């Protein structure tokens, strides 16, 4: 650290001024921290895809152990067939018909988002900061998309279904509890989503320290002149 500071204080010759500005940025300790944070953000985001993001539990008297649907970024698991079987009575579409595009592109999208952060980490451009936006907003995009689908499912019930008259259009609770017929639902975020949130924060911190490093380097350059 001290050697870096010493180097930074060494005046540079004019022809290498541009290059040395970058070199000075990359010699800042906060730059290394920001690189580490951005890489960590990509890694945590990658890890999050192996964990569930969201889970809903349905409770009814005749299901003493409850029914579950667990959602990952690219698939869902649990009592999907049983829930579909019940949903057909109220005219709700099968769960696996939801977010088909999102789930299909999710693996590629996650890789792209990760690469974009890595890009921020290794390509020295102020404007590349926008590449971190997808990672920083991903957990909220996920919830937003989930809410849209839940709204769409609950508000587009098949009018010919057996219980279409008894169940009014509704939006299942994306978080917390809700009630549909004899079912109460509890929806909670899962470790994968929290990991994505951590990745978003790491990316944000990475950007912050990148800015700190740049300002420090610029200050040094100004002082050096």
């Amino acid at each position, binding site marked *: 650290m001290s050697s870096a500071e010493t180097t930074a204080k060494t005046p540079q010759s004019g022809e290498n001024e541009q290059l040395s500005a970058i070199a000075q940025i990359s010699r*800042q*300790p*906060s730059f290394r*921290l920001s690189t580490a*944070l951005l890489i*960590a953000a990509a890694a945590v985001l990658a890890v999050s895809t192996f964990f569930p993001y969201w*889970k809903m*539990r349905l*409770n009814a008297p005749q*299901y003493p*152990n*409850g029914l*579950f649907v667990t959602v990952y970024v690219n698939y869902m698991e649990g009592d999907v*067939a*049983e829930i579909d*079987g019940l949903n057909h*009575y109220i005219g709700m579409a099968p769960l696996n018909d939801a977010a088909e595009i999102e789930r299909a592109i999710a693996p590629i999208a996650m890789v792209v988002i990760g690469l974009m952060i890595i890009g921020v980490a290794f390509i020295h451009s102020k404007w590349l900061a926008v590449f971190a936006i997808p990672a920083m907003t991903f957990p909220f995009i996920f919830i937003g998309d989930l809410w849209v689908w839940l709204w769409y499912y609950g508000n587009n019930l098949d009018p010919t279904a*057996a219980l279409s008259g008894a169940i009014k259009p509704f939006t299942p609770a994306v978080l917390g509890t809700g009630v549909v017929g004899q079912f109460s639902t*509890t929806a*909670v*975020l*899962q*470790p994968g989503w*929290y*990991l994505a949130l*951590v990745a978003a*924060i*790491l990316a944000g*911190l990475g950007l912050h*320290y990148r800015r*700190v490093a740049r300002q*420090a380097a610029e200050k040094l350059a100004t002082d050096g002149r």
Partner: protein
Amino acid sequence: MKRSVLYGIIAALVLVVIVLAALVLSPGEGGGQTAAPAQQTSAGVAEDAAQVIANRGLTPENVTAALKTYMPSGQYDPYMMFASGGHSGQVHVVGLPSMRLLRTIAVFTPEPWQGYGFGDVAQAAMFDEGKVAGSSVTWGDTHHPALSETAGSYDGEWLFINDKAQSRIAVIDLRDFETKQIIKNPIAMNDHGGAFVTPNTEWVIEGGQYAAPPVGSFAGIDEYNEKWRGMITFWKFDREKGRIIPEESFAMELPPYWQDLCDSGKLVSEGWIFCNSFNTERATGGLGAVEGAVPFESGASQNDMDYLHVIDLKKLEQVAAANTNELNGMNYVTMETAIAENLLFFIPEPKSPHGIDIAPNGDYMVVSGKLDPHVTIFAFDKIQQAIADQKWTPDDYGIPVLDFDSVLEAQVELGLGPLHTQFDNQGYAYTSLYLDSMVARWSLGGGDYAHADEGWTLIDKESIHYNVGHIAAAEGDTVTPAGDFLVSLNKWSVDRFANVGPLLPQNFQLIDIGNEGASLQLLYDMPVGFGEPHYAQIMKTERLKAVQVYPEVGWDPHKWEVNPDAPKSGEERVERDGNNVTVYMTAIRSHFSPEHVNIKEGDNVTWHITNLERAVDAVHGFAVPAYNVNLSIEPGETATFEFVADKDGVFSYYCTEFCSALHLEMHGYLMIEPDESSAMK
């Protein structure tokens, strides 16, 4: 700058903690559903209970009995009893100590709730295998259930039961509590000493009952001694296939005594089989038919002693494997061979015995002659010694009869009509006393058992109501008896229950045998208005490995694999090939697909139907009127039925099991168009 780096590291650490907390705190499968019921104060309960006790006039013993047997909703009985149903042809499964009937298993008798015998082709094939003299017989007389054993203890996998009337054995699969095989003994007309298994279930033993000329031959009763015969059959059980293999089974020719119950030797006596007999007088009866004839009941009770049959099964297996003698396709080991090979012996036993029961250590053989007030105990080592010393005299057929005194260990006087014996984990034996209507507890001797009482001593007797036949103690005929409970299987109930007309229920009485040092306590009366049970076995519930739903959709319970013809979701259709129509149907709450089936009079119809459900208890029935079809299709199961569409018209097929709120809507129409050409003819 350094400070901001520090902040960054702290922030990262905080995030790690958040992630870990999220991982740990995220709700599991049972999340939030473990709310404990509100505890009432014991003072409140006592007050309420005291009021109930006073209002109902209950004694302290009544209250104890109630507390020992009451099973709160959702709690499981620790024991399951498998009771024969007698001539109901079924098996009944009862939970202990609550004495709740959990299940009836249809075996030899069609039973519509289980869809048993009403169209299913696999069941029809099974009934065909159990045909008697070429005819379908749709009832049976089940007597003695035998749970499969591993190393002499129940293993919870299979259950065998005999049909006394037709000499048949059925195999019940305890993965789904359904009958999987019915096999007819090709040379015996009836049986009684079945079913019993060897300690590792290699053999299922079927003892005969009334002597007769072997099936396939006829001889008059004047040739009783020469041509009529008794028999014990050894059925080979293939555990992998879950089936009896007739080709590897054999029967043993015996004198025309009336063989009765059997038991397998265990531990020290493993490899030996013991079966008792009566009517060694060879009375031929004839009351009301032959001038001066005495009835069987007295003719068969003249001698003081009948013969306990002792069979060296290890030797018999080898002899049978090399044997070439056959009768009706059945490997048949003759008496001559058995005598020559020195593998069959008799021991005199007090007359008209019913039980032959081997003590848990395999060291003692307990016999009770119904007309003798004692239980008689033989020692296995003494039997072996007497055989080695050839201390015998031959009977009329040349079979060695061992010297009674040389093999006798003890006789214990219990009371009148001793019939059947079970054991507990303390070294006590329990014997039913038919005439006294009591159950006796007595101590085994020999020093190897846990109890502190003097051996071979009557300890206690408890009255039962009334006329006890068999008794069943928890795992009480295995090498690991459990103690705890005993059920007295009473033939008469007389005054125990409110009158339901002249056909009274039997009475299962639960007795607590777990009170160490204390007397036996009668706990509960269970009316049995659905059969006439003979014997029962009681197994720890935890030994069972039954499925809740079939492993995969399209399951064939008989083959225990997916049926390749099983219609799956989206594959529903009706195929026609000339006059042959195949229906591929699925069932799921609350519809069948297809809901219309249009065929023509005269079509040969094969109909596959799959229950697509994976939810526990989501069973669908399927009934077709006029064609005598009613199926029970459990979750995942594919059932198949066939019929010739010889009745035209419109038929409503529907789900017979109340499956859902829209159960009544779960139906469809089978439309059989009249064949105009045949009407013209």
